[in-house]
């Protein structure tokens, strides 16, 4: 029978996007950091013994699940065949918002796009086009995102200043009309 702490560690590590530090796990599981390392080592040994396709390893100061090195050929095929090869319009729009409005939080991106942007932002971060650049000083301390060096390189520009300026935007007649209507409607 697995211990509650070991099961809780498995659950947390399964949903974590980044390696989880033993100190944080210790706090969540209410055991000592030393005990956390013991538990994780026991789990890792069990997966090994059961010949699982994943491993639990200590990287970058924390614990995380990852695919077993033996199975890299399958994962590579998954990366090549199972992932989109082109940027979707939704992803490109999100990237444009980050590029032009940075630093920007995920919530702000969602407001501009009108739909939840979490999944797309995660993909853009993972691909290295977008990265964390700071924290909002206000309440909640939302993570702020900006575009990366790699983004500029892949797009073939030297700096953000080389992107087409926002000032080029001239609203069409229907937009002007809509704006006027909007202003009129607020008159009392």
């Amino acid at each position: 029978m697995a211990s509650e702490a070991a099961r809780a560690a498995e659950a947390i590590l399964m949903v974590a996007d980044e390696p989880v530090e033993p100190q944080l796990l210790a706090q969540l599981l209410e055991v000592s950091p030393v005990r956390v390392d013991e538990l994780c080592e026991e789990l890792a040994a069990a997966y090994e013994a059961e010949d699982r396709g994943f491993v639990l390893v200590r990287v970058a100061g924390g614990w995380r699940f990852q695919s077993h090195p033996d199975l890299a050929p399958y994962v590579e095929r998954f990366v090549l065949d199972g992932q989109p090869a082109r940027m979707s319009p939704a992803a490109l729009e999100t990237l444009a918002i980050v590029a032009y409005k940075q630093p920007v939080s995920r919530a702000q991106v969602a407001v501009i796009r009108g739909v939840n942007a979490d999944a797309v932002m995660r993909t853009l971060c993972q691909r290295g086009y977008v990265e964390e650049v700071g924290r909002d000083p206000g309440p909640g301390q939302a993570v702020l995102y900006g575009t990366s060096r790699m983004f500029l390189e892949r797009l073939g520009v030297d700096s953000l200043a080389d992107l087409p300026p926002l000032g080029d935007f001239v609203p069409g007649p229907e937009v002007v009309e809509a704006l006027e209507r909007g202003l009129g409607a607020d008159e009392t």
Partner: protein
Amino acid sequence: MRVAPGNSVCGDGGSPAGILRGVSYAVQTDVYEGPVDLLLHLILKDEVDLYEISLSRIVDGFLAYLDAAVAALDLELTTEFLVIAATLVDLKARRLLPGPVDVEVDEELALFEQRDLLLARLIEAKTFRDAGGALEVLAQAASRSLPRTAGLEERFLALAPDLLAGVTPADLHAAWLRVSSPAPPPPRVQLDHVAPVKVSVGEAVEDLVARLPGAGLVTFRFLTEGMVDRMEVIVRFLAVLELYKQGLIELGQAMTFGDLEVSWVGEPDSVFAGVDSYDG
């Protein structure tokens, strides 16, 4: 309790009752439980026969809503309410006013039809409300598990196709323009000139109790003189029905579509007993 427990998956969380108390709107302006919901709640929870008192409560509840949310007055909602209120007033009036002798068969049929339509809508509303409750149960159960979303490990990232291949700065700019150009605002009806109706059925009853004794035979038209708002007239009509039910007034109608005549028959110092039924 007439409602079988198994039929109430959603549990009715109490929010429809808020309509009557006028409390829930401040926080739920975009989720107003409409007139159909209100009827459903009144009939199934309070178990009132609409013939008894609840129509006035519906009107009072709706007025309370309008009071609290004049800024966001919704024309479709108001129209919907008027249609339902008018149907109900019609239904009640048929049963209160003297005999069906002069009622056209066609009218009677139309009335049944309206009632059946209303019933069908209530059944449909109840069905989807309970289905929504079941979805919530599923969502609650599912929210206890979180998915793995860690994604690719670094060693595989280099393999992943470059999603920016072929994307130019101009494409990026075009994408920005797509999301940043404002969508035309939805058409809005100017309602600023519409004064909110402040009178409740209870107040209308009080007004009638003050005016009718000693006034002799008066017409409903007379009692609603100067009223420009249909809602006010409906409220006044409900007050008249209430007094009739209490046996304080007599109603008469000389001919079909003729003026409704009202005369006070209660004792001069009759204590009006119905005010408490307006508290919801």
